[in-house]
């Protein structure tokens, strides 16, 4: 009782409302037991939150490992409460002036803790975050400039969902205030569906003010395609593999020439584990946006440990699978649209004749589509089928356009805009709808962004992105025909729904939104590297303000605009502009010296 009273006094000094709340809650969440060392330990759902032998020692080892990563100027946000041994140990190891916050998701658990564990001597220097998830995330964003999240997993697991939600909220809040510019190298595939996405990503990142180097491998497509002339299957695969490896080395050469802060690869980008390993050795952070169905394309399993960050378009099972396979950081990042490309457009009479239809479908000839779409043929409306891989189309032959040629993006836009009811069936290699269908395809966003009406098959992740006021969602193939019939006769309703879907895209589902989320996530996971740059730490004005260690640098920094990102190379460039006769001071000479070594690239490849 004495411990609780003292703790309440400590908490009251920090947060009187929290202190009062603690006295109100019933407690009893934690089952407190003595550990072998005599200190109390805690059990929840038959699982120990701390060591049953020596919780103090266990916490000390945990904190020793974590404190190595903590940098000056960072606010440490700790997830996981339990009996706070880990918090105490870390607090004691951190510098006195380093801020620390603990996210308290459950006051009852906290009350149990402060009844048996004294906060005296360290708890005064911890900020306890309570309230709604949003409130807690806002508090962190308001009070901390640079955030490092640490999780004490045995205790954090008890509130896994809350903490995940908190992380996402915090990521989004942090993403809103990013002002610094990164140099991001986007590495695209040779061909395929992720190629246009790579372009959209490049546009979005540039639009957000980042310097983007795009390693575009699509010019190699003709050569890659030419390998089809090798008739022997195994030989062809070997040569294709070798070509991919060469392209990976080409990507590495680009990284060596102009090292980025971050490499962002799109799925199918030709990067090998050896090249990713070399990037890691050279301390280049790498991320992959895997815009494929993880169940269908499984090569990620061999690459999972190669990237520092994975972003996927599916949740739950997908995230679990990646984590189990060894992904260090994996996050959900759905697809999107680029409103500069996917937009409503006026269709000329001539174009309408070619591309217009009551009903259209654009996509490749997957098995489920071949099975479902014939029901739309021969009805009392026009139906056009666009796309490739429709060999042996059967009853669909009469509606297949351009002989099954691949349709480029500008043509797709005309088709979407000139069609009354666009059918959007997610690909599946079986019959009917994919029973595990979760991720939402790019076409959903693109049609919406065009302000085009669509009938789409249900996906478990769709409701979080669009609701049924924005598009017609069907739950089984037999709903397709009646749904199309219904909406064909309701043009005003179609128009209203399509407008809502476009509005939704512009509000939340553009590639710009996605890239903000992406950068928020990588910045949060790497606060001392990407996070610091994203928050403007490398901007000239910020550097001037922090040039305590090297005041001689200030005049050199003042040659830049306040918001310019300034690196060693930029300062060196300015020094060189002084010309060959210039007399340089010691600091200028040292900067040039470092710049000489920076240019050394021979050990990269």
């Amino acid at each position, binding site marked *: 009782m004495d411990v609780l009273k003292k703790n309440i006094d400590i908490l009251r000094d920090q947060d009187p409302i929290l202190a009062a709340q603690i006295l109100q809650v019933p407690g009893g969440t934690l089952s407190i037991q003595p550990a072998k060392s005599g200190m109390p330990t805690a059990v929840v759902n038959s699982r120990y939150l701390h060591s049953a032998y020596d919780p103090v020692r266990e916490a000390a080892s945990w904190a020793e490992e974590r404190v190595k990563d903590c940098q000056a100027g960072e606010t440490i946000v700790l997830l996981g409460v339990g009996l706070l041994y880990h918090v105490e140990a870390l607090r004691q190891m951190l510098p006195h002036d380093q801020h620390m916050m603990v996210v308290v998701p459950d006051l009852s658990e906290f009350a149990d803790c402060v009844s048996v564990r004294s906060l005296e001597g360290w708890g005064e220097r911890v900020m306890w975050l309570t309230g709604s998830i949003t409130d807690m995330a806002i508090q962190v964003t308001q009070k901390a400039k640079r955030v490092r999240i640490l999780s004490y997993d045995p205790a954090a697991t008890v509130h896994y969902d809350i903490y995940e939600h908190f992380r996402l909220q915090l990521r989004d809040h942090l993403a809103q205030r990013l002002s610094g510019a990164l140099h991001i190298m986007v590495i695209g595939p040779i061909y395929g569906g992720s190629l246009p996405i790579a372009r959209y990503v490049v546009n979005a990142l540039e639009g957000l003010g980042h310097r983007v180097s795009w390693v575009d491998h699509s010019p190699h497509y003709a050569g890659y395609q030419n390998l089809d002339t090798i008739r022997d299957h195994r030989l062809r695969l070997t040569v294709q593999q070798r070509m991919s490896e060469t392209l990976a080395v080409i990507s590495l050469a680009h990284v060596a020439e102009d*090292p980025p*802060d971050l490499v962002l690869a799109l799925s199918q980008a030709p990067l090998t584990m050896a090249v990713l390993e070399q990037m890691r050795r*050279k*301390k*280049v952070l790498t991320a992959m946006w895997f815009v494929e169905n993880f169940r269908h394309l499984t090569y990620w399993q061999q690459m999972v440990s190669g990237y520092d960050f994975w972003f996927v378009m599916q949740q739950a099972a997908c995230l679990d699978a990646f984590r189990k396979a060894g992904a260090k950081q994996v996050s959900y990042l759905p697809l999107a649209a680029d409103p500069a490309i996917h937009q409503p457009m006026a269709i000329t009479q001539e174009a309408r004749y070619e591309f217009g239809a009551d009903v259209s479908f654009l996509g490749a000839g997957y098995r489920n589509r071949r099975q479902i779409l014939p029901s739309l043929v021969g009805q009392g409306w026009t139906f056009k089928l666009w796309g490739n891989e429709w060999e042996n189309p059967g009853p669909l032959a009469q509606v297949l356009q351009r002989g099954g040629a691949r349709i480029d993006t500008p043509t797709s836009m005309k088709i979407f805009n000139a069609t009354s009811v666009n059918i959007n069936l997610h690909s599946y290699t079986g019959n009917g709808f994919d029973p595990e269908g979760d991720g939402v395809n790019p076409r959903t966003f693109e049609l919406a962004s065009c302000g085009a009406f669509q009938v789409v098959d249900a996906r478990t992740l769709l409701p979080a992105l669009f609701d049924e006021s924005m598009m017609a969602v069907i739950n089984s193939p037999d709903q397709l025909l009646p749904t199309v019939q219904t909406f064909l006769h309701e043009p005003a309703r179609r128009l209203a729904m399509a407008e809502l879907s476009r509005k939704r895209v512009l509000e939340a589902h553009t590639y710009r939104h996605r890239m903000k989320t992406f950068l928020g996530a990588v910045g949060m996971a790497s606060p*001392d*590297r990407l996070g610091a740059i994203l928050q403007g*730490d*490398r901007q000239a004005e910020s*550097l001037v303000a*922090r*040039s305590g*260690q*090297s005041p*001689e*640098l200030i005049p050199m920094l003042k040659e830049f605009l306040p918001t310019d990102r*300034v*690196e*060693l190379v930029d*300062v060196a460039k300015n020094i*060189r502009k*002084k*010309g*060959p*006769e*210039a*007399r*340089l001071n*010691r*600091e200028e*000479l*040292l*900067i*040039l*010296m*470092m*710049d*000489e*070594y*920076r240019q*050394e690239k021979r050990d990269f490849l």
Partner: protein
Amino acid sequence: MSRALLIQLARLGDLVQSLPVLTALQSAKPERPLDLLCPSPLVALGQLFPCVDRVYPWYGEQWHELARTKMTDCDQQLAQATRYLAEYAFPAYSMAYNLNNHPRGMLAAHVLSGLVVGPGEYGPMNQRLPAWAGYLRQIAQDRGGNRVHLADAFCGMCQVLPPLDVPYLKAPEVPLTSGLGLPVNGESSTFIGIVLGAGDAERRVPLSVWQVLIAACAEYIPQSYLLLIGGEGEREAALALEHRLPAKYLNRVVNGCGRTSLPQLVALLNRCQWVVGSDTGPLHLGAMCGARAIGWYFSRARVHETGPYGVGHYVWQHDQGRPGEILDGCELRTEESSVAHWPVMETVNLIRDEGVNSRTDEWDLWISNKDEWGAFYTRDGLLDEAVLHRKDTWEALSQLANQDIRMEVSK
């Protein structure tokens, strides 16, 4: 008291070839302490140079790491670089002699001294080269009839005449790794160092050739012992070589590859009467340790520029019978070597002090000499025009030298 610093940031061979200029500078101004800045792995060797007061290490890797990091901003990078330099507590230098014609050497010289001699003497960003540095660049490009040795050109670059005596590195008192003691059996023995490796792959002699040479030495030179010299990179090759040799020769071979520090190597080379190898650092080191060197110069190696420094060394220059550029009337190949016949028996005969033909189908034999203008090589003992022309080169380049810095002469 004013101090001077000589900067040599290149490899082992260049550092050894810098010993004459260090000797000459120290001799010219014995009252002025002379320090050396060299790559960190070579510091232990620099500390054996008798003319050098202090040796400072240059950690290229550390600079590289500092410069390439994405973790820190330029403010922190500069602070770290300043701290890094401060840790070594360099004294104030009245003059820095820079031998490296690359920005790092030039910048280092200006960081450490207000007055720079050598590349960078017109300013840290000024590409204009001093006369001697320009001359070296020109002969590197044109490969003309130059006869000024690189070590002497370093002297010219530092505005000092070559040393009167050939520098000598005496053996330090260092314990040797077990099994590396050369045999002492009371009889007169001949110790021969064999330099297995080379920094550039194109200057490596095939293992099979070394095998033949070792067997020939063991067979034809009584009481000869062969010391295999090389670094970590040659360890495997040396083991393979030992494996290939007939058992009867094994007690005549001491494998020192990857087993010696630089001071230990100097100690061992001091016991060698001969050292054989291509144009490599250990060959030059052997020459400075008093051994007579026999160089096999092929690929881009040129006897007149980088032959072992001193008197009485031999160089077999691979230069005949192939198209290529002209070197003193002989054609010199510049492409990768494809030697058909190696001068194995010719080398054995030189060691046996037996007469050899100074020309074979592929090789010319050159012998080193020295005069007031430095080291030079002659064929068949003949002083040709090019040798005599060195004096003119020295005089012409001295005229062009920066007149603010007076030419210093060894005392």
